[in-house]
């Protein structure tokens, strides 16, 4: 009934006015989109300019020639490859561990009723919502104080200034968000499935591994994409819980880059661009997952 009436109601509006408004909307959103894409375009443009060109004409000028030299200089001069490697060593294990652990907690909390499950869920969720700066002061002391971390994980026995320490804090901090989202997702999976598997004699670990995890594949893919960008983009932990610049992942390393190339915009832009490329590629390839990851929980701490 409603569907059949709707077009008639729309047609009652003067058609020309609607078309004008439509064109207005297009112009508005297109202008906004141009403004939105511009900062990145400008950074890319600055990174592609030659020194000879910019020294003479400034950056606000038509190019006399474009070059990839700045990327090469930043790549070599700022030791970007090492920063990438540091990022890789931190990000990949963090994402995998955070998702595995979070899926176990979410499974245990949503599929079985026990006394403290809402409290546990709240502790995890709220932990992720706290501003990181609230806990950094004691955490910094703790990372310096702990001295019993065995050899392959820590070269000094400490958590401070070690990739392992950064992985640990990333996992624990991001876990709260993953648990929140995954438990919302798992609530939509029928509890009877778990019960049927229990009747069948499967243990809970087996149910988690072969029943729940396969069903959560879409949510896990979305969360993996999202968490990759979150952890890749983390600036704060490695800035304060690592003191050796050479060990810092690329996002925290930007702080060094900023000091190094303060006066050379081309190198600064090239370095910033190199830092951005991996997340940009992941986003362009997996945009759907990224977006659904954010909207699954409709929150990010």
């Amino acid at each position, binding site marked *: 009934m*409603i569907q059949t*009436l709707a077009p008639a109601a*729309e047609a009652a*509006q003067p058609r020309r006015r609607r078309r004008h408004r439509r064109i207005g*909307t297009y112009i508005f*959103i297109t202008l906004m989109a141009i403004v*939105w894409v511009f*900062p990145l375009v*400008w*950074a890319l443009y600055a990174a592609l300019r030659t020194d000879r060109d*910019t020294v003479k004409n*400034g*950056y*606000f000028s038509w190019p006399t020639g474009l070059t990839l030299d700045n990327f090469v200089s930043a790549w070599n001069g700022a030791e970007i490859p090492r920063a990438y490697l540091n990022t890789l060593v931190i990000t990949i294990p963090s994402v995998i561990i955070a998702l595995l652990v979070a899926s176990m907690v979410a499974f245990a909390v949503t599929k*079985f*009723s*026990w006394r403290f499950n809402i409290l546990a869920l*709240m502790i995890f*969720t*709220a932990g992720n*919502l*706290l*501003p990181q*700066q*609230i*806990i950094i*002061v*004691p955490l910094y*002391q*703790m990372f310096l104080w702990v001295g019993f971390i065995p050899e392959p994980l820590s070269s000094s026995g400490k958590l401070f200034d070690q990739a392992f320490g950064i992985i640990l804090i990333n*996992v*624990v901090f991001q876990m*709260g968000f993953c648990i929140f989202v995954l438990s919302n997702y798992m609530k939509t999976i029928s509890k*009877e*499935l778990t*019960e049927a598997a*229990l*009747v*069948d*004699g499967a*243990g809970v670990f*087996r149910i*988690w591994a072969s*029943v729940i995890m*396969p*069903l959560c594949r879409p949510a896990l893919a979305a969360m993996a994409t999202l968490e990759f960008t979150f952890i890749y*983009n983390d600036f*704060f932990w490695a800035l*304060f819980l690592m003191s050796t610049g050479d060990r810092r992942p690329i*996002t925290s390393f*930007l702080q060094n880059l900023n000091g190094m190339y303060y006066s050379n*915009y081309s190198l*600064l832009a090239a*370095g*910033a661009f190199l830092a*951005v490329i991996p*997340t940009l590629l992941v986003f362009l390839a997996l*945009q759907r997952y990224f977006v659904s990851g954010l*909207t699954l929980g409709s929150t*990010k701490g």
Partner: protein
Amino acid sequence: MANSHHSSDLSSSTGDQTLNDAAPARPGLPGTTGASVDRVPMLRRRLALPFGGGRRRRFSLLTRRDKIVLALMVGIPLIFDLVLIWGPAIATIGLSFTDWTGIGPLTDKNFVGVQEYQKLLAYPFFEPALIHNALWLAWLMFIATPIGILVAVILDGNLRGSRIYQTIFYIPVVLSLAVIGLIWQLLYAPDVGNGFINSFLAAIPPLPFTHFLPDVAHTDWLGDGSINLFAALVATSWRHVGYITILYLAGLKSFDPQLREAAAIDGANSRQTFIHVVFPAMRPINVVIIVITAIEALRAFDIVYIINRGRNGLELLSALITNTALSESSRVGFGSAIAVVLLVISIVPIVTFLVWQTREDQQ
């Protein structure tokens, strides 16, 4: 098969088939072990009850080993969460009553009561930081968030090329705020000829009335303490708008189109429909967005740190903490007192969110 399988005919089928249907990726759990033999008669007895679903029934299905596994699954992460997040959060409160500098052991002599809080009140950067955080919140809440909602509403209409627009608005969301700070430094660079904004302003041909205006083309956008906060806010909004658009657009897509059609029949135009029909119906997502905006405003840090380490007009509570407690001066007690202030403020949006979330769950 899907729903009422076990209540009817449990003795003949042990539920294997249900599993096969639901999880095709793993073809059936192979041969049942001895445990299931024990469970089935017990279960049959329980399921004979007309209705159940209480805690007791589900627990009784679990073996002792299952319970231990579940306890470990939640317990180990919980311990880590308590030790690495909640422990430090509480320790911050404790440290705020000391004058510890982080050097040497913490002894009774370090406990000085509320002395650091008194110092905080006299600290010249404390009040600016509070004001800046409040401005940050107000800007995100009343400027950036509404723009994000507007973009989402526009993209929700059948716009040609909507996907491309979405990609453009979402790109800044995947960038770290540190890199956003760097990118905007290039735009804000003060020297005409290099910084885009000032070069652009300088390139505007003079009009009869422009000589009355101040010479904006030589503004030091990030260096001038009276305006750099707004420059940083513009850069932050570049990301925040896209973030809100993602969340709001998802909400709009799940909005029942019949409600909108009904409003159209009643003669409402699209603006009236949005204000009176769509927006109120989006209440759950509105709450989430307000909470997220508040939390983003409180944890704002990266962008001011990369611009000038949160000084000279860019003081924020978050940056004051690291600048006092984790800098050369290492004023652990003092920094912790600032952290406690931030904690107290943060509790408001966090509790709002948790209360809202539990209430949603119960409905």
